[in-house]
């Protein structure tokens, strides 16, 4: 029960039910958010962390309703700022496991800066971004991940904003853990949530999530059952990049450009394929993989990057210890009496 490096209070093992609240779940029927909630609630008991040590923090958006449905501590904050609140919580009490639930608008539009800075500080936060490429809650405006040219409520003639790639941004922000999964693959999703939970440091998981009301089917071109194997690729550490129904397609590097090859054709062997490495200190490879998009490439899911380095709160606590060691625990008496003093009789 403490496989993930977290302490347990030795209490009875919790179940999925323990993590459900009495609040009615209010997403539209059919929304991909349900699947993500289900997987998080499934994974939680496996982590062996008592409920009271877990905090879910969100911004605003359909996705950000999430904390109300988790029977842990929760904070539904304001639009785009969840990483800031979460940083405060984690820094105040590093014992807590702190999750951030956000959407593509929340994390990348109004909240892009906090997202980036929380990641770069390597605060130990577990950030899940529900990417539905649309603003759900406000009823259908485009988001920073919406495709160029997409028509929607606020762009009736089509969006003229080039979309942003959330993974590229995460790498730019030096995130120590970066993964991707999707609502329609619960098993994979559960594994990714577990990996995220186990990571110590700023972790970011992008989840492709279908908004069946305002953006139905944006991902289905590549993630529907029939085409998925040919149009997506699962990253596995130390394994070559192979995909396809027949497991005979692969990714090879040509200079710094990935290209699709068929194993067995034109003399290509498995040894020619790129081998995935989550752990490289420099995120050059994960960056390149993160930019592979349908239809040019199969869409990668899995863990792109997972490295360890001291977290922000560790270093902060470390400085406090050092200060106490070198200067002694703070004395109020000394503090207020410091500097030049004089006595008037």
């Amino acid at each position, binding site marked *: 029960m403490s496989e993930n490096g977290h302490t347990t209070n030795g209490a009875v093992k919790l179940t999925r039910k323990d993590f459900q609240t009495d609040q009615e779940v209010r997403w539209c029927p059919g929304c991909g958010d349900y699947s993500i909630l289900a997987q998080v609630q499934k994974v939680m008991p496996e982590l062996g962390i008592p409920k009271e040590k877990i905090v879910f923090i969100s911004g605003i958006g359909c996705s950000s309703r999430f904390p109300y449905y988790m029977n842990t501590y929760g904070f539904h904050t304001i639009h785009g700022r969840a990483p*800031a609140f979460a940083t405060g919580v*984690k820094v*105040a009490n590093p014992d807590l496991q702190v999750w951030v639930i956000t959407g593509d608008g929340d994390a990348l539009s109004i909240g892009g800066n906090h997202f980036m800075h929380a990641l770069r500080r390597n605060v130990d936060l577990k950030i899940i971004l529900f990417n539905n490429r649309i603003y759900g809650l406000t009823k259908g405006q485009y988001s920073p991940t919406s495709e160029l040219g997409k028509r929607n409520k606020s762009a009736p003639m089509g969006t003229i904003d080039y979309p942003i790639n959330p993974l590229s941004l995460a790498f730019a922000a030096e995130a120590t853990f970066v993964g991707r999964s999707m609502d329609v693959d619960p098993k994979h999703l559960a594994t990714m949530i577990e990996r995220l939970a186990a990571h110590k440091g700023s972790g970011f998981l992008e989840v492709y999530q279908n908004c069946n009301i305002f953006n139905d089917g944006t991902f289905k071109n590549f993630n529907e059952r029939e085409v998925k194997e040919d149009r997506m690729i699962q990253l596995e550490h130390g394994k070559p990049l192979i995909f396809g129904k027949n497991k005979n397609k692969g990714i090879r590097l040509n200079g710094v450009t990935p290209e699709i090859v068929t194993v067995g054709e034109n003399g290509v062997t498995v040894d020619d394929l790129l081998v995935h490495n989550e752990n490289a200190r420099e995120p050059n490879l994960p960056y390149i993989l993160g930019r592979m998009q349908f239809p040019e490439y199969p869409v990668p899911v899995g863990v792109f990057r997972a490295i360890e380095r001291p977290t922000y709160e560790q270093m902060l606590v470390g400085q406090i210890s050092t200060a106490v060691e070198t200067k002694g625990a703070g004395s109020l008496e000394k*503090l207020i009496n410091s500097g030049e003093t004089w006595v008037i009789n």
Partner: protein
Amino acid sequence: MSATTLEETVTKLPIEELEAVTIRFAGDSGDGMQVTGGQFTATSAVIGNDISTLPDFPAEIRAPAGSLPGVSGYQLNFSSRDIHTPGDEPNVLVAMNPAALKVNIKDLEPGGILVLNTDEFNDGNLKKAGYTANPIDDGSLSGYRVFKLPITSLTLKALENSSMPFKQRERCKNFYALGLMYWLYDRPMEPTLKWIDDKFGAKPEVAEANVMALKAGYNYADTMELFTSHYHVGKAQIKPGKYRNITGNEATAIGFITASQLAGRPLFYGSYPITPASDILHELSKHKNFGVKTFQAEDEIAAIGAAIGASFAGHIGLTGTSGPGVALKSEAIGLAVMTELPLIIIDVQRGGPSTGLPTKTEQADLLQAMFGRNSESPVGIVAPATPGDCFKMAVEAVRLATKYMAPVFFLSDGYLGNGSEPWEIPSLDSLPEMKINFRTEVEGFFPYMRDEKTLARPWAIPGTPGLEHRIGGIEKKHITGNVNYEPDNHDFMVRLRAEKIQRMQQDIPPLEVFGAPEGKVLVLGWGSTYGAITTAVEQMRERGHAVSSAHLRYLNPFPSNLGDVLKRFETVIIPELNLGQLCMLIRAQFLIDAVSFSQVKGKPFKVSALVNKIKEYL
């Protein structure tokens, strides 16, 4: 040049007794005027004068040496009686270059002493200061007692045996000037000698050079019979106690550390640098051994967000900034109101609107603190009256915020933050108790249940078994805290949040009146105008006028006796460094024809201006 010894000179020249002197050191930002002023202040305090100071930094960019915008000044008032302001007009001006003269001469009292460093009055510098003729020669200074001294050369001369490079030797000229003034006002050099030793101990040659410059200045004044007399300002009748000199920003930082220690909870400070609040961040970041956690955020929104998060997790959540930063924090303050978490927002006010006058003082954020958020979003507001008072009001802010589970504004300003005063170090026993009761009992817990007296909801922090709950910015159901859209519940909760802040009155001391409890005029103030108002009213009372004053340290809610106090006076005058913000609140609440006396110049009131205004109503 006669060869008299030091002792002889001292006895030879007459010593005049003065009640109070205001002196201003002015020079280029690189000239060390803040150090000079600071030393004069410290020494005066040690020998028992009452003092009050006003540093005046150049505006935000370091201007080129010798230019007008590069001028830095430090004014101090030292006295043998109680004083509350750095003085309206300096009696002495030390101007280290033409630009310093240009910027400051208009403030010097007629006939005042003017000390000029003639070495710097060369063509280049005169041009930079915008002089077409050299004021030293053109007669324009004839209304003052001018002392023309080649301070730079004299300093270099004194240090000719020093091995330091030229630039560094030259830099000692501020100590030379300080020495001159020490002699003129009969101050001992020991405190400064000790300070130099502490500060430059590691670099003995620097220490020695400064000591030599100081002494050279002192001796020069003495030996040359430069001034026709020198002056003595006696000890003030100061409340017995142990004192230190403290700036408002220091007192603020120390005050919040103290509050956190009294509360037994670590202090979390989320901030983004901004003038004139940054020094609080600098100061707090030095005290990690108190468990203080400082977080320099990416912006003001993240700074307050993290502070609220920390408060949710059981720390004393504190965030600090100046006016433009408060504007950015507005949305998040609303969340703290809705989630009813303790949070203190420091606003070290500065000149505005917009970027405004970033290094100057103003009191124009009161209404922003009151109303600067969407919808009905009440918060507590306290405001220190003097630099030292920042300590006390910091403790008060934490006490109210934690007891009532609500955000509280701490409205300081640039004048308080950078200004300093002798501060009587309180005994720790005199500080209020601050019991923090985290909820731990599971039985009967609801996140929005209420304490009957304070209406506070329980503070139940993550990590507490069995109290898992969710909060957020959507309207809450009374007691359960669940998301709720019912019309009547909303109306109830809006009024409840207002009432909760109002109930802080229970914990606020009554407003005290200085002077008689009734009369012709009451001067009602708040914040950093305390000194000027008190001095003006003291003067008027001494002249027998029926004038009193009262100073609000709690601005929302007001002390419960405020209405009573006001109605005992024929006229209420409210001087403010804004266009009448407190005045508006008073008029609306009490329907009295309070008179606003406004000044928005980026600097404190002059006592004389207040006196003149008061006279109009007698």
